[in-house]
């Protein structure tokens, strides 16, 4: 029932799928996600719904093929049905007219940024888009971002495209230049979201992040996605995934995101199809349980299949 009606590779290992899901397309609002399972032994993993077309009864998903399930999904062609797809899950983004909004996407975080930026623009906000990536080939959805935002700044860690540096450098420069920013949205790897939160905290700018902890059911039943916000335990799947960045305990989030890295590392070794340590193939990896160390966390800049 959830047939793939179109697909394209928009960047290396980064795919855009249009999937038939009439009920989800009708209900879905900005900020919500779906949980998928692509084969019988696979995990349940979340993906942000990037857009939906209620008339066509379709939703748009963008993912990076980095773990077993997403790699399998990337091999599924037009006409194939996705085994399980449930949603839309999570609370929709709170949208209102804030004024000038800075929307920051780190690496693959651009995919979940797009729907929220779209909704903010539709509510009459002025949008300054900031897109950061490791290097030029990791910059995705640029054209679309430019269409949504009033202006766009791009930066890369290595300076291969746009400014050299991080999204926080660009944001700081805007603030220093006296730009009145009323609202900041930041989605990307957790260290990036934490850095943005620390940057805006002294200025008291309302800052929202979308968290991607490990999830199983996505409907509030397991508590695996619990995060601490303002000293209270929240479930990202039903209370979020968006939270006030200044209240989030990012340390705990990062630790919890790494809970299964060791087990998965061992599983990867067992299943590793190539023996060379330099091989980037992550066969055996797990899509919503990623990363082991800072380097892996950085890699998540480009690998954020869990948009939630």
């Amino acid at each position: 029932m959830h047939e793939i009606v179109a697909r394209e590779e928009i960047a290396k290992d980064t795919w855009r799928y249009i999937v038939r899901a009439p009920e989800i397309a009708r209900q879905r609002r900005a900020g919500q996600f779906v949980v998928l399972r692509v084969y019988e032994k696979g995990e349940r993993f979340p993906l942000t719904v990037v857009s939906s077309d209620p008339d066509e009864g379709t939703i748009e998903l963008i993912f990076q093929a980095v773990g077993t399930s997403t790699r399998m999904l990337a091999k599924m062609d037009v006409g194939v049905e996705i085994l399980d797809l449930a949603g839309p899950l999570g609370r929709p983004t709170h949208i209102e007219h804030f004024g000038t909004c800075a929307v920051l996407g780190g690496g693959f975080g651009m995919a979940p940024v797009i729907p929220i930026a779209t909704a903010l623009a539709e509510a009459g906000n002025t949008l300054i888009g900031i897109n950061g990536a490791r290097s030029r080939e990791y910059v995705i959805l640029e054209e679309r971002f430019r269409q949504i935002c009033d202006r766009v700044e791009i930066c890369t860690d290595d300076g291969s495209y746009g400014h050299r540096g991080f999204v926080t450098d660009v944001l700081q420069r805007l603030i220093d230049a006296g730009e009145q920013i009323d609202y900041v949205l930041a989605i990307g790897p957790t260290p990036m979201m934490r850095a943005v939160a620390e940057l805006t905290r002294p200025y008291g700018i309302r800052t929202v992040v979308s968290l991607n902890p490990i999830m199983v059911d996505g409907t509030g039943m397991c508590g695996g996605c619990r995060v601490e916000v303002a000293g209270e335990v929240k479930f990202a799947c039903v209370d979020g995934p968006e939270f006030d960045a200044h209240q989030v305990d990012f340390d705990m989030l990062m630790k919890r995101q790494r809970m299964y890295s060791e087990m998965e590392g061992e599983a990867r070794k067992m299943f590793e199809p190539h023996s060379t340590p330099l091989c980037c193939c992550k066969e055996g990896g797990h899509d919503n349980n990623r990363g082991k160390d800072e380097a892996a966390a950085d890699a998540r800049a480009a690998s954020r299949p869990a948009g939630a």
Partner: protein
Amino acid sequence: MPEQPPGQRVRNFDEVPLGYDAEAAMAEASRCLQCRRPLCVDGCPVRVKIPEFVRLVAEGRFSEAARKIKETNAFPAICGRVCPQESQCELKCVLGKRGEPVAIGRLERFVADWALQHGKIQAPELPPPTGYSVGVVGSGPGGLACAADLAMRGHDVTIYELFHAAGGVLRYGIPRFRLPREVLEAELEYLAKLGVTIRLNFVVGRTATLDDLMEDHDAIFVATGAGLPRFLGIEGENLLGVYSANEFLTRVNLMRADRFPEYHTPVHCGDQVVVVGGGNVAMDAARTARRLGAENVTVVYRRTRAEMPARTEEVVHAEEEGVRFGFLASPTALNGDDDGWVCSMTCQRMELGEPDASGRRRPMPIEGSEYEIACDTAIVAIGSRAHPLVPETTPDLELSTRGYIAIDDSGATSKEGVFAGGDIVTGAATVIEAMGAGRRAADSIHRYLTSERPTDEDG
């Protein structure tokens, strides 16, 4: 009843009690006194015709016995395994006053298994369709029982389930060593034979609201359960290695983490596991941990063995499997190592004081009695709360305390045509109580649908 020996069963997820053979079942059934006023039936939330089916078993007429049970209980293979018979039908059995009551649960299981193995399960002849359509929210025991009863009365029934597999707690909560999945599958197949449709991956409150469903159905039964895990609210509860029992069991039961990495969902189960709680879910978590290879599994419970809500059989099974118990102890903190993993639990010793509202003696902390238990995995099994999705997205649905749905004696909610039952009404209880609620709601829904009521046109 023969059982898998403990040393063997902690290394597999196969069922523990092996079940009666025909001869043993007939011998057990022939002990029944066939009371003229059978009290056992009063003890059964779904009023299974116990003396009748037991007599048929004694006479070796097993397929007739199966049909007799199915008259009032669509899911005997499940109930024969997970019902707390010792506090229901068997508690009322006259024989129990001077000795062992008739093993009604085991006989029910025998009959159901026999019918499954011999392909003797046929759907009863269904009445002609009534033209009414009922939506059931949740495919746990309450939803399944309600759906079966409504289908047998000729109504068109669709169940909405948020997971990718049906069964609710029977799927994600109860381990396969207590309820083999073939048994669940067979019971679900039976439901399909009754013409019930199950829509998986359908999250009521998200994929569609209750109000949306009202447009497609003449009545709705909400049986969404108490799926939201409760935590202790103590320091360190978000450390790595700390699970809700729901998550731990869901990973293993629904996602098959016991077979990681063949199945891709992992579960962390260390060598030293502490389970907090005294109910059946705590026993399920502890016994699952043993099967995942944990050497030391300790259940920490704040009262004594006598007050444990878990079934005696589950406690005994856990003990046989090497699970230890720390009674009169209450966790006050979870302590972590430098990497953020749980490494110990601080507990405070308790003593029993005056009885509380539940009639059980209230545990009181003993000052200065803190001690530490080393652990690398901690599982919190202290109950659950109402699943919030339906109440949150249905503004005119009246709630009782703590987010549960309020109903009247008939099971009707404050919203016209919407009924509710099971854990979403009562808070966490048993499978059979939810089934009982489902069946009572089915009665009320049937009456509601078939009695004269004002139509929309009448205003």
